[in-house]
C-alpha cells in the first residue's frame, strides 16, 4: 500500500523494511520465543521413551483427547450458537438480562466447576441424598447414578463454561450483519439462520471454537480431577513421573501441531470467501416479539446454560460459605484480589494493543510471511499453561543471562535478574498465552472491514498510523473491547503460569484458592473462589453494555 508516484517509475524501487513491518516482526518474535523454547526442549533426547508410550498409553491419550475435544465442541456450539441466535432474533420476557447473563459462565474457572459439580452430584451430595431419601436406597450398590468423574462429565462441565466464547463471537457477528441481508433471505424464501446468519458468522464461530478447543486441549485442572487420561495429563505423567521433560515437550508439540493443522484447515476452507461489509452501515435485524409458549421456550433454552454453567457452581460455593467452612475474609485475600485485578487489566491492555498492531499491519500492508508470523504468535493458548511457563522461564533465563553478561562487561557491576522472578514475567507469560483470545476477537472484527477504507484514508493524505487510529480502530472498537474483556476474565482465572512464575510472597485469588483446591479442600477457599467469579462479572457486564450501545448506534 505504499504510495508510489508515477514520475520515477523507471527507476528500480529500493526495497526496505518499513518500521511498521519491523515492529510487528519483532513483536511477533518476542511472543513466539517461549513457544520456540518449548520446541527446543522437545529437541532433546527422550531416551527412546516414545516406543514405550506408543505401545502403552499414547493411543489412549490421543483417543481421549479427540473425544473430549469433539464433545466439548458440540456442547459449546449447541449452547453458543442457539442462544446467540435466539437473543438476537426474538424478543421475549427477560431477554435483556439473559443477554448478558449468558456470558456469566465465562467467569467460572473450569477447575472450580469440576469441583463444585462433583460435590453436587456425588454420593454424599444433595442430589443423590435426595434420591436415596425419596426411594429408600441404602447405599451406592442399590442404584445406578451417572458418574460425574467421567468423560461425559468432563465434556459437560467444560462445555458449560466454555460456550460463552462461541456465544459472544456469534452474537457480535449477527449484530454486525445488516438487516438487508436478512430481508433478502425473507424475500427469497430462504432460511435466515442457515442461509445468512450462520454462513456470515463463520469466521466468528470458528474463532470462538478455536479458543474453546485450545482451552480444552491444554486443560489440566479438570482432567486431573476427573482422571481423564488426555494428552495433557500424559504430558505431566511423562514429565514428572519419568522425569523426562524432553519427551513431555515432544507430546505437547504434537498436540500443538495438531491444533495448528486444525486452524490452517479452517483457514484454507474459507480462504476464497470474503466477509467484508460492502455496503454502507444499515439497520440491524428487528427482533420478533414472542409471547406465550414460544416466548417461554426461548426463556427456557437460554436459561439452561446459565443455570448449568453459573448458578449451580456459584450456589455450591455459596453453600460452603454459609455453612461456615470457608476461611474468613482477611487482608491477605484483599491483597490477592488487588493483584489479580491489576495483572488482568495490564495483560488485557497489552494483548489488545499488540493484537491490534499485528493484525492491522498484516491486514492492510499484507505480507504472507508477516501474517504467518503473527498467527504463530497467537497460538500459545494451545499449550498447557505449565509447559508454556517452562518455555517462558527458559526464554527469560536466556534474556537475563545475556543482559547480565552485557551489564557486567560494560560496567563491571553484578546485575540482578531483569525478568526472572518479577511480575513482568507473569505478565509476559499471560500476554503470550492469551494473545489468541485478543487476536481472534480482533481478527473477526477486522476481516469484516474492506481494505478500501485504508486506501481511501491514505489517498486523502493520512499516514498509515493516523489512518489506523482515526479510521480503523474506531470501527473495530467493539471487537477490541470484547477481546480485552475476554482476556481480562481469563487472566483472572489463570493459574498454572502465575503459580510458577510469580515473585516471592505474591498471591492472586487463583493461587490462593489452589493451595486448598489441590488437596480437594475447596470448601475452605470458597470465599476467594467466589471472589474470582464475582470479579469476572463486572467486565462481563461492561462488555454487554458496550455491545448493546454499539447495536443501538446501528438501529
Amino acid at each position, binding site marked *: 500500500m505504499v504510495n508510489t508516484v508515477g514520475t520515477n517509475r523507471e527507476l528500480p524501487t529500493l526495497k526496505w523494511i518499513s518500521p511498521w513491518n519491523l515492529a510487528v516482526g519483532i513483536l511477533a518474535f518476542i511472543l513466539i520465543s517461549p513457544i520456540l523454547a518449548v520446541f527446543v526442549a522437545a529437541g532433546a533426547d527422550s531416551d527412546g521413551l516414545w516406543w514405550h508410550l506408543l505401545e502403552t498409553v499414547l493411543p489412549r491419550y490421543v483417543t481421549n483427547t479427540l473425544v473430549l475435544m469433539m464433545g466439548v465442541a458440540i456442547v459449546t456450539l449447541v449452547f453458543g450458537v442457539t442462544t446467540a441466535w435466539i437473543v438476537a432474533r426474538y424478543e421475549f420476557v427477560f431477554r435483556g438480562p439473559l443477554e448478558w447473563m449468558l456470558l456469566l459462565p465465562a467467569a467460572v474457572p473450569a477447575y472450580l466447576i469440576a469441583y463444585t459439580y462433583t460435590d453436587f452430584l456425588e454420593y454424599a451430595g444433595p442430589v443423590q441424598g435426595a434420591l436415596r431419601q425419596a426411594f429408600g436406597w441404602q447405599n451406592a450398590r442399590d442404584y445406578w447414578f451417572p458418574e460425574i*468423574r467421567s468423560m461425559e462429565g468432563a465434556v459437560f462441565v467444560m462445555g458449560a463454561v466454555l460456550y460463552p466464547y462461541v456465544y459472544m463471537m456469534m452474537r457480535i457477528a449477527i449484530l454486525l450483519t445488516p438487516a438487508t441481508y436478512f430481508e433478502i433471505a425473507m424475500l427469497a424464501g430462504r432460511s435466515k439462520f442457515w442461509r445468512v446468519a450462520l454462513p456470515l458468522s463463520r469466521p466468528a464461530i470458528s474463532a470462538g471454537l478455536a479458543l474453546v478447543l485450545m482451552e480444552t486441549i491444554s486443560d489440566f485442572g479438570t482432567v486431573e480431577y476427573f482422571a481423564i487420561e488426555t494428552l495433557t495429563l500424559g504430558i505431566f505423567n511423562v514429565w514428572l513421573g*519419568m522425569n523426562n*521433560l524432553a519427551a513431555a515437550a515432544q507430546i505437547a508439540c504434537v498436540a500443538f501441531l495438531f491444533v495448528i493443522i486444525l486452524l490452517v484447515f479452517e483457514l484454507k476452507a474459507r480462504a476464497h470467501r470474503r466477509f467484508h461489509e460492502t455496503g454502507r452501515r444499515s439497520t440491524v435485524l428487528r427482533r420478533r416479539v414472542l409471547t406465550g409458549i414460544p416466548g417461554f421456550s426461548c426463556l427456557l433454552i437460554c436459561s439452561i446454560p446459565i443455570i448449568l454453567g453459573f448458578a449451580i457452581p456459584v450456589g455450591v460455593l455459596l453453600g460452603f460459605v454459609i455453612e461456615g467452612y470457608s476461611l474468613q475474609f482477611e487482608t491477605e485475600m484483599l491483597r490477592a484480589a488487588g493483584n489479580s485485578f491489576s495483572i488482568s487489566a495490564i495483560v488485557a491492555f497489552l494483548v489488545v494493543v499488540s493484537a491490534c498492531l499485528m493484525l492491522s499491519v498484516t491486514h492492510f500492508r499484507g505480507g504472507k510471511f508477516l501474517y504467518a508470523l503473527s498467527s504463530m504468535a497467537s497460538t500459545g493458548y494451545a499449550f498447557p499453561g505449565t509447559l508454556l511457563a517452562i518455555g517462558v522461564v527458559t526464554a527469560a533465563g536466556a534474556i537475563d543471562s545475556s543482559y547480565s553478561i552485557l551489564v557486567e562487561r560494560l*560496567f563491571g557491576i553484578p546485575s540482578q535478574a531483569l525478568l526472572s522472578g*518479577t511480575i*513482568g514475567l507473569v505478565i509476559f507469560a499471560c500476554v503470550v498465552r492469551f494473545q489468541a483470545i485478543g487476536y481472534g476477537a480482533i481478527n473477526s472484527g477486522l476481516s469484516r472491514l474492506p481494505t478500501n477504507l485504508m486506501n481511501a484514508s491514505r489517498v486523502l493524505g493520512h499516514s498509515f498510523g493516523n489512518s489506523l*487510529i482515526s479510521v480503523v480502530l474506531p470501527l473495530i472498537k467493539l471487537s477490541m473491547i470484547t477481546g480485552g474483556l475476554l482476556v481480562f476474565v481469563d487472566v483472572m482465572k489463570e493459574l498454572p503460569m502465575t*503459580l*510458577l512464575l510469580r515473585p*516471592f510472597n505474591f498471591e492472586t485469588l487463583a493461587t490462593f484458592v489452589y493451595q486448598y483446591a489441590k488437596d480437594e479442600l475447596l470448601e475452605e477457599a470458597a470465599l476467594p473462589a467466589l471472589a474470582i467469579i464475582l470479579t469476572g462479572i463486572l467486565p462481563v457486564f461492561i462488555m454487554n453494555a458496550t455491545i448493546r450501545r454499539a447495536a443501538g448506534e446501528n438501529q
Partner: protein
Amino acid sequence: MITVLGTNFILFFFNIAGSNLRHSHIYISYGGFLERFLISPAQHQIHHSVATHHYDRNFGTVLAIWDWIGGSLELAKRDQALKFGIDEKQDAGHDLKTLYLSPFREAWQALLRPIFKENRLMSFVTFVNKWRAARLLLLIGLAFAAVAGVASSVGANELNIYSHRQPFLIKPFLDAYTEKTGTKINVVYASKGLAQRLLSEGDRSPADVILTVDIARLHVYADKELLAPVESEILLASVPEHLRDPDNKWFAFSKRARIIAVAKTAEDAHSISRYEDLADPKWKGRICSRPGSHVYNRALVASFIDAVEVEKTQEWAQGVMDNLARRPQGNDRAQVKAIFEGVCDIAIINNYYYGKLNTSEKPEQREWAAAVDLIFPNQDDRGTHMNISGGGVAKHSKNKEEAVRFLEFLTSKEAQELYGAINYEYPVNPAVPVPQELAAWGEFKEDQMPIARIADLAPQAQKVIDRVGW
C-alpha cells in the same frame, strides 16, 4: 566506575560537551539523531525562546526522550535566531500563589477538561492521534520495562524458599523460625516446574532453600545439580542414613506411611496383611484407588520393584487393577469416602489423610474416618512403605549459612513435633517421640529401603503403571 574529578565520567564529558553552555548564546547541536536522546545546548536555548511556536518545548535537562515521547521535542536548526526571555505581553503577576498554582490550572485546562467534557474515547483517540506512532511504541515499551524492572529486591537477613508444599502447611514452621531468629522468610509455592525455574535462573537465582513433598521431585533437583552439598553435624545426627542423600544434598524432614484402609463392616478384608494380598482375585470389585501415576502410588510401585523385580511388580499391579471397583480417581481422602459410601471396602491411603479426616471440623468427614480400620502392611517382612517430605539448599544460594540453619531447625524437636501436630506425619529425628495421636494407631515396622532408591526406580515404576493402565 570511572570517575573524573570526583564525578562520573559520562556526566563529566556530557557537561564538557556543552551542557555548561546551554544558557549562553553559543550554538552547539548534537545532530538530529542524538538530540532525540540528549538535550543539546542549542535545544535548551529553544526552550527559553520567546517565539510562540517555541513555547513548551524541550523540557529535558539531560535526556530528550521524555520530550520525544510527550511531543514537545524540538530539534536545533542551524540558522536559528532566537530571542530569549518571556514575551512582554505575558505578564501574569509575580506573586508566590500565582507562580505555584498557575501551572496546575493551565495543565487542567489543556489536558483534563476536554477528556471529561467530550466523548471520552474519541478524545483519547484524538489525544493519541497527536502523538507519532513511534513515540507511542516507545512509551509502551518503557511502560513494559518499568513494570518488568520492579525486581524482587532481597534484603540480607532474609531467606528465600521455593516450596512444593502448600503455604498454609508450612506457615507455622516459618512463623516459628522467624520468631526464633528474626529472619524474614519469602516463599514461592508451585506444585510443578520450580526445578525448571531454578535451572533457568542459573546463578542469579534468589532461592536459598527447596522444600518438596515427595522424594521424586527432590531427586530431580539433585539430578540437575541444583542443590549444594550440606555439611552439618546436626543434620547428620538427626536424619537417619536411609532418609538422606548419600552426598548430603537433600534430607527428609517427615515421614508418611502408605497404609491400607478397610471398611469396618467388611470382616474378611481384615485378614489382609500385605500389599501383595491386594492382588488376590477374591477382592475383585472391592478396591478403590487414586490414579497409579500419582507420586504416592508410583513410589509404592517403585518399592515393589526394589523388593520383587519388575515382572512380579507388574503382575501385582495388574492384579490390583483387576480388583478395582471403579476407575482410579480422586485423592486418598476420596478413597476413604468411597468406603464410607459403600462403593468399595479396601483402599490404599497415606496415613495423614486418615488423621485429618478423623479430626476434621466437619462431622461428615469424621464419619468417613469412623467407617474404616487401618492396616499397617508387611509387618512380617520388609515393613510398611514410607514416603517423605524433604528439602535441600539451593546451589546458588547467596545465604547458605542461614539456609542450613533453617534445615537444622526443621529437624529440631520443636519443628518435628509440628509435623505431627499439623499434618499427622511421623518425625524423622529418632530422638523425637512419635506424637500420641499417631502412636495410638499402632506401632509398626517401616520399610528401611534407602529412599534414594525409590527416586531411581520411579521412571521404571511409571512404565509399569502405563503398561497395566492403572
